[in-house]
C-alpha cells in the first residue's frame, strides 16, 4: 500500500503540493510532508486532542482525518496562529502570561481549540469554556492555568 496521490493542501495561507498515500492522516502529512511539526500526536486515536488544528475555522482532530479529505479546506496550525514572527495571537500571549503550559506537548492542541472557539465566539460563557476545554488532555498543568489563560484570551478578544 504505497501508491501515492498528488495533493494540494492550503495550510496557514500557503500552498503545499505534496504526494501522499491515501491512508496518510492529515497529522502525518502536516508533520512530515509539510514539515509543520508544531501539531503533535499524543494518542493517534482521537482522544487527547494534541493534534487539534482548525479546518475552515473549526477545531478538528488531525489524527482522525485523512490528508486527502482536506483538499480545498483552509487548514490552520499552531505555526499559523500569530500573524507574524513578532507578535503572538491573544491565545498564545495569554498562555504565556498565565503559565498555561509546562512541557508544551499538549499546548498546540489547546491553543488551536481555544483560538478556534474564541474566534468564532469570544462571548462564550465560563461553563461553555470549561466544557470545550474538556475536549483535550493535558498531563502537566492540571488545567487550572489553561482555563485561566483561555478566560484571559476571551476577555482580550471580546470586541
Amino acid at each position, binding site marked *: 500500500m504505497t501508491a501515492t496521490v498528488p495533493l494540494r493542501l492550503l495550510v496557514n495561507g500557503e500552498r503545499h503540493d505534496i504526494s501522499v498515500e491515501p491512508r496518510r492522516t492529515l497529522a502525518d502529512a502536516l*508533520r512530515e510532508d509539510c514539515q509543520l511539526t508544531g501539531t*503533535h500526536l499524543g494518542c*493517534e*486515536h482521537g482522544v487527547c486532542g494534541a493534534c487539534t488544528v482548525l479546518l475552515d475555522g473549526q477545531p478538528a482532530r488531525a489524527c482522525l482525518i485523512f490528508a486527502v479529505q482536506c483538499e480545498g479546506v483552509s487548514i490552520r496550525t499552531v505555526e499559523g496562529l*500569530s500573524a507574524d514572527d513578532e507578535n503572538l495571537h491573544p491565545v498564545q500571549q495569554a498562555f*504565556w502570561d498565565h503559565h498555561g503550559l*509546562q512541557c508544551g506537548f*499538549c499546548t498546540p492542541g489547546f491553543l488551536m481549540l481555544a483560538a478556534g472557539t474564541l474566534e468564532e465566539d469570544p462571548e462564550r460563557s465560563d461553563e461553555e469554556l470549561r466544557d470545550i476545554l474538556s475536549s483535550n488532555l*493535558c498531563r502537566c498543568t*492540571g488545567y487550572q492555568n489553561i482555563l485561566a489563560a483561555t478566560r484571559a484570551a476571551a476577555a482580550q478578544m471580546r470586541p
Partner: protein
Amino acid sequence: MTPRTATTAPADLSAPTSPPAEPPTWTGQPVRRVEDPAILRGWGTFVGDVAARDATCLYAAFVRSPVAAGRIRSITAPPGVRLITATDLAGVRPIAPELKRPDYVRVEMPVLATDVVRFVGEPVALVLAESAALAEDALDSVAVDIEPTPAVLDAAAAVRPDSPLVHDAAFPGDPNTTVDARLTTPGFDAALQSAATVVELEVSCGRQSAMPMEARASHAAVDRGTGRVTLHTATQMPHVVRTGICDCLDLDEDLFRVVAPDVGGAFGAKMSLAREDVALVFLARRLRRNIAWIETREENFLAAWHSREQRYQLTAAFTEDGVLTALGADIVADVGAYSCYPVTFGVEPLMAFAELPGPYTIAEYSVRSRAVLSNKCPIAPYRGVSRPVQTLATERIMDVAARRLGLDPVTIRQRNLVATFPHTTPTGLVLDQASHQEALVEAARQVDLPGFRERQAAARAEGRWLGIGFSCFAERTGYGTPAFAARSMAITPGYERVNMSMDPSGGVVLRIGASPHGQGLRTSLAQLVADKLGLRPEEIRVVHGDTDATPYGWGSFGSRAMVIAGGASSRAADTLRQRLIDIAADQLECAPEDVDLREGQATVRGTGIGRPIKQLARLAHHNSHLLPAGELPSLEVSATYDPGGTFSNACHVAEVEVDELTGAVQITRFLVVEDAGLLVNPAIVDGQVHGGVVQGIANALYEELLYDDRGILVTTSLMDYLPPTLAETPDIEIIHLASVSDATLTGAKGVGEGGTIGAPAAVLNAVSDALSPLGIELTHLPATPSRVRTAIRTAQARLSSEGALR
C-alpha cells in the same frame, strides 16, 4: 547529615561570598518562562520532530509478546521484511541493575526477549522499514509462536512455595521475592500491648501509568565517517542513558552522545533505560543508518513502565488520647517482570520501608517490605513513587482511629504531627525545619470544619452525601548521594554539577547536568543566577539535556532539580560574582566589599561610579594582562552540590459529594496548604502543585491499568484508561507557607511530587467521611464509581439485614 558541597575555581577564589544584601530582584517573582515562546509558536523540538525532519531515517517497530509467560518457539516474517531478533543482537549485554543488598535478587532484562517472554508487551523482535507506516505494515506480517507457560499474576500467590517463577533465579527467601527489607524497633511489641486501641487496616493501590502526553520516542543518528551515534531520546537523565547503553554495548562513552530535546512530560516514566533504545543504537551503528522509534500510545500502556501496585497490611497502636505510639506494616509491591535501570525494582518497597512514618512522631515501627515479581509490565518510578500509598496508609489510619476514639480529624493529627526540628524518624531520616502543624491548622481554618459539619448534616438530612478529607505528609526532596547510598544502589545518583561561563559580550551560559522535561528549570535557574550577577534572567542561557554540552549529572527526578542543580548554580554564581567584583574593584580602585553588581553594572556602593559588567567580561578575555595579579583569564567556573536532603510538607483537604446511585464522586473543593521553603518562581511552583494534584485525583478515582486473568492488559487506549479532563478537575486553591530551613543552600525545597502524594488520601478520606453513616472505609486506589457503588450496596444490605435481625 551535613551537606557536601564543592566548588572548583581558581584556588584563592573558592570561598563563597554572602549573597547580596538587598532583596532579590528576580527570585520569588512569577517570571514568564523563557521556554515558552518557541513552544507556543510550534517551533519546539521534540524527538518526534527530529525524526520528522529526517527524510533518510529508517523506522523501527517492535514486535511484542502477546502472552504473559511462555517460551518462544519461532519468530518469522515473509521475505522482504527486515526482521531483527535476539540472535541478531548477539553480544549485546542485558540490562541488569544492582542493589548491593543481601536480599536483592539480580535479574537480567535482555534487550530483546531471548527464549522466554515474561509479560504481555515485552519486545521479542523488531522490524525496520523506510517509514513508520511501512514499519507498522511489516509488524503485522510477523508471526510469533510462543508456547504459553503458567503466569504469575498475583503477588500473594507469587510468594507461595508452589508458585511458578518469573525468573529462574536463586531466591534466598520466598519465591519471586527480590527485595525483603525488615526492621523492628526494640519497643514495638510493648507499645502494641499497652495500646488503648489498635487499628488494623489493609490499603492497596492498583497499577497506574505516568502517561506523559508524549509517549517515548528516540532517534539514533549515525555519523558515517566516525560511526559516532547521537541518540535523541525523550529522557529525564541523558547521562545515565549514555552510561547504560555504553555498558550494554561495551562502548566508550565519548563515542556516543545523548540529547534530550524538548521532552513532553515524564513524571518518572522516562528515567529508566529503555531496552528499545539499546537496540536502536546498536542497529544504527551496525547498519550505519539513522533509525527512529516513535512509541504508540498502546505500546506506552503495555510496556513503558507501570507503577504503584502495592498492598500494606497495617497495625497501628493508639493511646486513648489518640497518640499513635507504634506502627506496623507488611508491604508487598508487585514490581512486574524486570528491574528498572538505574534505580531498580527496590524503588517502591524501599522508599515505603524508609518513609512510611511520614510527618508523624511515631516512636516504634515494625516493617517488612518486599518486591515481588510477576508476569506484568515492570514498574519504575512515577511521581511520588510509593508515597501516595504510604500517605493513604497513614491518613486512613488517622481517620479510622479518630472515628473510633471520638476525635475529629484535625485534633488527632495535631496530636501526632512532628512539631520540633530536627526530628529523627525510626528509620533514621532527619526531618528538617518544616510546618506540619501550621499547615494543618491553616487548612482547618480555611475550610471551617465546624461549618462543614453543619452543611454535611443538613445535606444528609436531604439524602445527599458530603464528606471532607485531610491528608498530611512530608515530601522528601532534593536528596543527594548519601540518601541513595543508604539504599545501597550500585549506581549511586545524587550530586549535580554545573559549569558557568561569561563570554566576552557579557552573556552567561549555565550548563547543567540536570535535565528538565517541562518544569521550566531554565527560567528558575536564570532567576537565581541573575540576582547573583546583577543581570536579567534573559541574559542567562541555561543549557541542558546534551551529554556533549553539559557536565555529567543525574537528571531531573525525585523533586531534586531546583534544590540540587539550583544549589550548584547558586554556588557557581557566587564564585563568578566574586571574580567580577574583584576585577571591578581593581579597575575602580576600591575594596571588593564596596562593589555591588546590579542592573548590568558593577558599581561602588553609594556612588555613581561603576563599570558595565560587559566591559569587565571583555577585559577578562581580551585584556587579561590588565587583570589583578593571580586572576586567571576568561570567566569560567564550576560547582557541585550534593545535599543530604530536605522535606517539604503539605496538608491537602478535599470536599466531595458522593452520588449514592452511581457511586460517582464529585470533588467540590480542593485546598493545598504547602511549604516548599523559598519559592524561586511561584507561578512554576503553583503549576507543579496543580498538575500533581490532578494526577493524584486520577489515582484516587479514575486511572487503573487492568490485566485479565491471562495476564493480558485490557486498558490499552485512552478509551479504557481514563485520565481526568478539565470536567473532572476541581478548582485547586493553594496557600504557601515558607519554612526557613538550612538543609538546602538556596532555602528552596523540592515541590515536584507533593500534589500527587497528598491528593489520593485526601479524596479517599473525604469519600469515607461522606459514607461514614454506612460504616464504609475505602482503602483501595482508585475508588472508581463501581467500587464505591459496590461498597454502598454491600453496606446497605448489611445494615438492612442487621435491622431485620434486630
